[in-house]
């Protein structure tokens, strides 16, 4: 157990850890630069703003999802949570046009929190697999949404201008929505990186049994992860209203798969333990950018979905190969004992 050639093992681990974020940035460049050549508008201010705006809702959801996925769980109900929160937020504004914006956003967050509590209780206390629980609540939340909406739609004209400005306004040329997204991603990243309870989430996902032995309150932490994921999805719902101005009960249907895809492309291990919020957010940006590029490059719309799917599979394959490589390197390095 003498010297373990520390710098080398560390370097490899670091490289693989960062390779993911670097890789996405490179991929982004590979996608954007040729597109910009073909169509310079793509990288003008409006084009860049649109790219960021398109990715922002998914990026926010991906940040919340990361908290759950690193604990070896998954939250498939985010799309429905977003829909429910979007509708209730919009309705609050439509019924009470004088509602302060912050209060309205809090309504969204509150709705999300309630959904998160339901998921969290079922998973952490009921000890039921999260995949099944959140698949169930995916239906339940959406059903409640339909029941509340009763086929109505809330339009931009019913919503206060301040809210819509939030979705379209800019601060120093950057859309406010993008700033909010950055704030959420930064907060989640900070939490996961620099707080004890955040690190606990990684520990739980990395080795649940050891987490119990290490005295980590596993159920409470998992509950918190779902709670936060719900709250973030709720906030995303409120942002959705601000961005699109039109909300009916179907808002955000099917979004969960996009979010999981973004998280996975972003390098978060689907079985927990590793991955970063920044990676997940970059994953969302990459997927959104590719979709936009295909439109701009006038690639038939029909190809877009196939390309996203192929990309997702490519990403997890590369990940897996890198992980195997890393494992081999680490194993080689610790057989030293000379």
């Amino acid at each position, binding site marked *: 157990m003498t010297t373990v050639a520390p710098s080398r093992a560390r370097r490899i681990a670091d490289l693989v850890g960062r390779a993911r974020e670097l890789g996405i940035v490179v991929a982004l460049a590979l996608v954007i630069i040729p597109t910009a050549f073909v169509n310079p508008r793509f990288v003008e201010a409006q084009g860049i703003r649109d790219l960021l705006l398109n990715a922002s809702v998914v990026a926010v959801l991906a940040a919340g999802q990361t908290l759950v996925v690193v604990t070896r769980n998954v939250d498939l109900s985010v799309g429905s949570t977003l829909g429910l929160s979007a509708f209730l937020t919009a309705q609050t504004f439509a019924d009470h046009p004088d509602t302060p914006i912050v209060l309205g956003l809090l309504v969204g967050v509150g709705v999300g929190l309630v959904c998160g509590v339901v998921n969290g209780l079922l998973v952490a206390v009921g000890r039921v*697999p999260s*995949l099944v629980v959140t698949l169930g609540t995916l239906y339940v939340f959406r059903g409640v949404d339909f029941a509340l909406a009763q086929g109505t739609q809330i339009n931009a004209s019913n919503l206060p201008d301040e809210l819509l400005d939030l979705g379209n306004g800019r601060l120093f040329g950057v859309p406010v929505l993008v700033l909010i997204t950055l704030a959420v991603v930064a907060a989640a990243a900070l939490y996961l990186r620099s707080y004890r309870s955040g690190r606990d989430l990684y520990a739980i996902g990395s080795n649940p049994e050891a987490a119990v032995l290490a005295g980590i309150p596993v159920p409470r932490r998992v509950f918190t992860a779902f709670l936060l994921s719900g709250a973030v999805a709720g906030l995303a719902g409120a942002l959705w209203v601000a961005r699109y101005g039109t909300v009916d009960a179907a808002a955000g249907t099917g979004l969960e798969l996009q979010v999981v895809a973004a998280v996975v492309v972003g390098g978060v291990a689907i*079985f927990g333990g590793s991955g970063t919020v920044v990676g997940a957010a970059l994953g969302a940006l990459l997927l959104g950018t590719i979709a936009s590029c295909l439109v701009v490059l006038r690639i038939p719309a029909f190809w877009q979905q*196939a390309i996203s799917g192929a990309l997702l599979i490519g990403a997890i394959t590369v990940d897996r190969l890198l992980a195997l490589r890393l494992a081999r390197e680490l194993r080689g390095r610790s057989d030293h004992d000379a």
Partner: protein
Amino acid sequence: MLERFARWETALVALLVLVAVVGQIRTGGAFLDGGNLFYLGLDIGEVALIALPLTLVVVSGEIDLSVASVLGLSSAVIGELWDAGWTLEAILPTVIVLGAVCGAVNGLLVTRLGLPSLAVTIGTLALYRGLALVVLGDRAVADFPSSFTDFGTTPVPGTWLPWPILLCAVLAVAFAVILHSSSFGRSVYAIGSNEEGARFSGIRVKRVKLTLFVLTGAMSALAGIVYTFRFSSARADNGVGLELAVVAAVLLGGVSIFGGRGTLGGVLAGVLLLGGLRNVLILDDVSTEILTVVTGLLLLVSVLAPALTARVRTSSTGRRSP
């Protein structure tokens, strides 16, 4: 003996009976009417066909979310080939082989590269649906001869039984035999309960799993054929979102998402329960949103109930071993 009563399958059958009785009363006898049962059968046909192989996949501890996309892809290919002048007799086997290939891609990614099937099939969910759009685009092909579409729209002569359900029943027997009475099925359970243990017992884990994914692909393609003929409409977006309904039915049928546990009978009861409940609620003019909520709640109950009874049982007898 008591355990037998506490089994989830028993509860499911009881629920089914309850739904049938209440449905019959609430709808004034319309529920168990032959005509209604025919429609009920049509409605659950595709879900049942896909649920059969998916049960085996989930018992083996994996999952396949790409099933509905394979259905869509096969429907799109049927349309495209039909437009290109192929005969249906040539198209149908081609499509089933295509489905098997889709399944093989899933299976190879899972077994050869060791990727988690959840992530892989979320990817192929998008990929196969995307390919369906590439193949058929925005077109809808509808001019199939009635000799074929009748398969999806008429009952077996002299009965109320829809043809797809007859097909499904035959295949259900085959799958039940495979899962419950064959050495292959025994391997599937062993892999699902303890993959390592299965490997140490000489079971070819990778090959079994690959076979299951191929079967699932082929059956999804078959469901695509049924779907296409039932609506006499080949479209790229056929069956969007159906994967959740199938997974819900399988889980409701008592199959453990972690593998190793579940029966085909339970899954069929799950399919019937979801379909029957839906049918009763629609007949009774209950609104759609309630349907969605009920589906979700049933799913939650299906996992909560066993978890809770298990906990009650262990707390009464104590844990077995450290």
